């Protein structure tokens, strides 16, 4: 009961962020690659409820903004109001010249623009890019965790269950992987792969690298647990009834390690999201124009972005929120399993 209460807030928070990221096509008002050359690094658009004469409007609205040529500050033209429409039809044009119409959660009529979190150094909407980028970063974290835990489950169960030289060999290899500073290893592995590839290929390669490098730590834990489970009486009993090794692992060992897997997942997912973010921050991940939280943060390394565009930190804020949630979940799960063992 207490566990459920502790998990409520972080799980809701994560669910909301994931929902927003995976429904980016609907929620984001613009596409991730649309550039606005007349609105480079413009601050967030103010959404008004009260107009210039003090009247309150039920429907929020924005003003058209123009950049002052000398002060480079944005001024609002308060004469015309542009109301924010919900469930608007957006039109996108692709390379072949065909147009498709799809719905967006909200939007304003041109020439007004609604940049909830400002624009980046190419005039692209940061809010939309943050959602699309979250899709990349979060999905690669999740998939890499699945891969890594899958490997760990295989290696760990086999090592713990069979023991002897198999165990020794797997554990030596795991120690080698554990000992190395893994960011160095990740970069080194990336070095041996071609730099310029299709975004989809890069995406899967990044996932494969992160997942394959992270197998050692969970393997050690799973192996330890499998080693102790192997000695239990019910396993000996099952074996005496003629149960095969595969049956024992599937029926008795795997259920025993399931709670460990859950706790490990809560620990690994944020690490792997961060790994993807770090790789794309260094320019080794998914390339432009596809956004990732890492490549979005990378533009903060430019001096003019850093001094003037605080809104460019927004993917970072969202990232911290994700990590905090996972941290709370991990702590709650660990406490719960510690209590269960008592």
């Amino acid at each position, binding site marked *: 009961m207490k566990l459920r209460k502790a998990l409520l807030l972080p799980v809701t928070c994560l669910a909301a962020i994931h929902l927003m990221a995976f429904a980016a096509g609907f929620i984001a008002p613009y596409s991730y690659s649309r550039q606005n050359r007349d609105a480079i690094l413009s601050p967030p658009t103010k959404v008004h409820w009260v107009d210039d004469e003090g009247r309150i409007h039920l429907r929020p609205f924005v003003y058209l903004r123009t950049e002052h040529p000398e002060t480079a500050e944005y001024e609002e033209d308060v004469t015309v109001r542009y109301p924010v429409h919900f469930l608007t039809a957006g039109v996108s044009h692709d390379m072949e010249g065909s147009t498709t119409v799809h719905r967006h959660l909200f939007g304003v009529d041109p020439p007004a623009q609604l940049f909830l979190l400002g624009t980046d150094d190419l005039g692209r909407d940061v809010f939309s890019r943050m959602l699309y980028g979250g899709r990349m970063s979060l999905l690669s974290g999740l998939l890499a965790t699945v891969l890594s835990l899958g490997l760990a489950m295989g290696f760990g169960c086999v090592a713990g269950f069979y023991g002897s030289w198999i165990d020794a060999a797997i554990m030596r290899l795991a120690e080698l992987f554990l000992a190395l500073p893994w960011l160095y290893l990740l970069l080194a592995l990336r*070095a041996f792969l071609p730099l310029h590839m299709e975004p989809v290929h890069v995406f899967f390669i990044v996932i494969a690298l992160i997942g394959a490098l992270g197998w050692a730590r969970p393997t050690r834990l799973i192996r330890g647990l499998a080693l102790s489970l192997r000695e239990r009486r019910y396993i000996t009993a099952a074996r005496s009834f003629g149960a095969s090794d595969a049956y024992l692992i599937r029926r008795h060992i795997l259920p025993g390690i399931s709670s460990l897997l859950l706790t490990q997942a809560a620990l690994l997912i944020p690490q792997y999201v961060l790994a993807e973010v770090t790789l794309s921050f260094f320019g080794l991940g998914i390339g432009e124009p596809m956004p990732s939280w890492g490549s979005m*943060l990378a533009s903060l390394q430019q001096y003019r972005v850093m001094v003037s565009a605080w809104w460019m930190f927004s993917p970072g804020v969202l990232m911290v929120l994700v990590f905090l949630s996972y941290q709370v979940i991990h702590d709650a799960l660990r406490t719960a399993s510690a209590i269960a063992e008592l």
Partner: protein
Amino acid sequence: MRYLVMRLSQAATLLIGVSLLSFTFLQMSPGDYFQEMRLNPQISQATVEQMRTQYGADKPMLARYGHWLASAARGEFGISLAYGTPVGPLLWGRARNTLLLTATATFLSWILAVALGVVCAIAPRNLVDRCCAVASSLLLAMPELLVCLVLLTIAVHTGWFHTGGMMSLGTGEQSATWLQQARDLASHLVLPVTALVLGMLPTLLLHVRNSLFEVLDLPFVHAAAGHGISRFTILSRYALPVAGNALISLFGLSVGSLLSLSLVTEVIMSWPGVGPLLLEAVLARDVYVVIGAVTVSALFLVCGIALADIFLYASDPRIRAERLA
């Protein structure tokens, strides 16, 4: 003595394992430095093939590895394809800078962690302890890259700190005195060291606090308190040495994550350490520099573990007795 030999052989195994692993990946990887060269229309196919032969890229893996080992024994670690010079000299200067940065940060963060950890452990759940818990879980959720960016932004806005690099222009010249150079270096160190300390502190603090908290609840500490020994003496003479054992092991284990943190910090703060060299090499597909940098990081790791062993040996009489026997 036997213990020493065993430890040394373990370290050697690790280093050889790491370099062998790197070579295996190198062999498995599609394409190489020369393949990118082929894209350049000014370089003919024959030239590329000739260069491949010259650098030995066409030989089988074990031959290349043997060649590399021989060159590592000479301190060269292969030839950098992009710089055209031996990798060794490139690496040593960078490794020294990384060492300077990480050693300073480690020293400071351990002092801070032990001081704060003691305060938190002797009065659990008071104001300081709660503040530390909140701050460290926030910092834990804050990736190093974000810490660096925030610190840089603060520095740029206030102008209090030097941002980027290791020396101001001109201070490296003959006219500058030794003291001026040291002061310049220190002022450049402030920002990257702060970033690293903020990255390391939460984990260290948590461990110091928890292990000290456990030790303070052991019977012998209560017995000492019952004898009327002062709290300060109990802490410094009784509890800390016992808790120290776990902490020193932690020091050895944390070198790996410290190096990962340092890589990010070095790149963002443009500190001329191994990190930026590795990143440049990755982008240029300069494989020997990559392998060299990874080997250097493993070397750091081995040294860190060895240092932890020495400390453990010096601080824990049980280990001394066990290992001399």
